[in-house]
């Protein structure tokens, strides 16, 4: 993702302002320096409508939950791929610059959510995750990364 010169890491309230303009039907609020945005995503015309929530504090990467319908594994006790703790969506590979703080949530994170939900439905339909990705070795616990700019070298796990 190319970063235009002069761009800076966007604060939560700057993301809030962009969210209001770009996705006006999302319900966006600022709560103690944290942007909370909720809205609907329908990954394809035949798909269910999913209600999702984004939380963004400016200093850490955005967090994304699906509020409804509840995400479910394919069989009881099974795991949904590409999630953190089976609670939040893992939308990109950390420390690769796929996400950085100069990027706009509405234009980057929200399209990824649509893509993730698309593959989640496909996974249920055909039994295989066809959207690619990396499933890391579960042994080393995920290191919480600091929000950084594009040129900021982040710690690798």
């Amino acid at each position, binding site marked *: 993702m190319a970063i235009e010169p002069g761009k800076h890491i966007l604060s939560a309230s700057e993301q809030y302002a962009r969210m209001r303009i770009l996705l006006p039907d999302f319900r966006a609020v600022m709560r103690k320096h944290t942007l909370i945005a909720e809205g609907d995503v*329908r990954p394809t015309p035949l798909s269910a409508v999913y209600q999702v929530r984004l939380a963004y504090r400016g200093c850490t990467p955005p967090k994304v939950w699906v509020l409804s319908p509840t995400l479910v594994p394919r069989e009881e006790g099974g795991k949904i791929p590409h999630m953190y703790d089976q609670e939040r969506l893992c939308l990109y590979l950390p420390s690769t610059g796929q996400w950085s703080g100069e*990027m706009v949530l*509405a234009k980057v994170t929200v399209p990824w959510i649509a893509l993730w939900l698309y593959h989640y*439905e496909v996974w249920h*339909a*055909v039994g295989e995750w066809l959207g690619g990705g990396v499933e890391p070795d579960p042994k080393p616990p995920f290191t919480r990364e600091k929000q950084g700019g594009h040129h900021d070298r982040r710690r690798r796990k």
Partner: protein
Amino acid sequence: MPNIVTASANKQFDDILERLCIKLQITPTQFTTARDNYEAVGGWLGQDDSPIAIYSPHIYPQGSLRLGTTVKPLGQEEFDLDAVCQLDIAESVDPGTVFEMIWDRMYANKRYRDMIVRKRRCIRIDYARNFHLDVVPAIPHCERGGTCILVPDLPDPELEDWKPSNPLGYAEWFEKQVVTINKFAEARIDPLKDPEPLHRKPTLKRSVQLFKRWRDIRFKATPRLLPPSIILTTLAGHLYEGERWSTDALATILTKIVKATRGRRLQLYNPVNDQELISERWEDEPDSYDAFRDAVREFQERWLDLIHSTGVPAITKELQELFGEPVVRAFREAVEQVEQARAAGRLYVTKGTRTLTEVAGPATFTVPRNTFYGD
């Protein structure tokens, strides 16, 4: 704007069904094999030294291969191709004699001798690899003229008769029904519209393929009651209203069949030959008619529920129950196309409903490159 959602949902549905139909029909290899075999038989029958050459034999395919509505058989069943062998002979000659002339010519060839079987109305040639070719003897039906023919009906040697038929006229009729009337074309604003035209096989032909495939699965356990393809094809041709999507086309066709079978038993004549009762089996075996009527009623209910439902996993499951395993392969193929667009940076999301699309516009965001991760 619910109409836009409906239009694009239909489009997405139709895309899956189109991919499914390509998987259901006979493969190009099977097609080539069938055509080679058919041409070889035609060559043998029409060769200069053939005793029937003086009757100017004219060999032409009829049925699903001619119409473009082939469906691969389920499991081990054979797929068949029908060819007419028309001889220029007056109808004063009895049907058994014409049948025997063609039989004798086939028998004279060592290759065919062990492959041919006598059937009530044709000579069946059994090939390896689950394929057989039915050669239907025929003579011109002078009284009716045009493409009308008479074919022998030989239930037993005492009861032989000529039966009127018109496969070429039927094919012409069917092609006329195929023409799509774009009655909703102007009202459509479709955010998922493909940049290139995707539709090659006309909607009616695809609807017939789906109808036949459903029939094969639905009557798998009761083959005796299986409704013949000619009946399904003729009903579909009559009842199609020019819908653009096969979702809608099949809904119309099924709903109208349900209505038409509410009263007394349906009688279906060949649209180009009113002397040919193509539903004659229903007269002889009323239980096969009842089975057809009940099965179509159930299919219509399920189809209407399906095309108005949402949720890709549920839709895939129901499609699979109706049409079998190729549904998943068709679905995966559609996903591959989306993934290719994604890799090429040509996948977008609409701002309004956050829906994936391959068509960029002022109201779309590009899906940026990403790698899904996990814990």
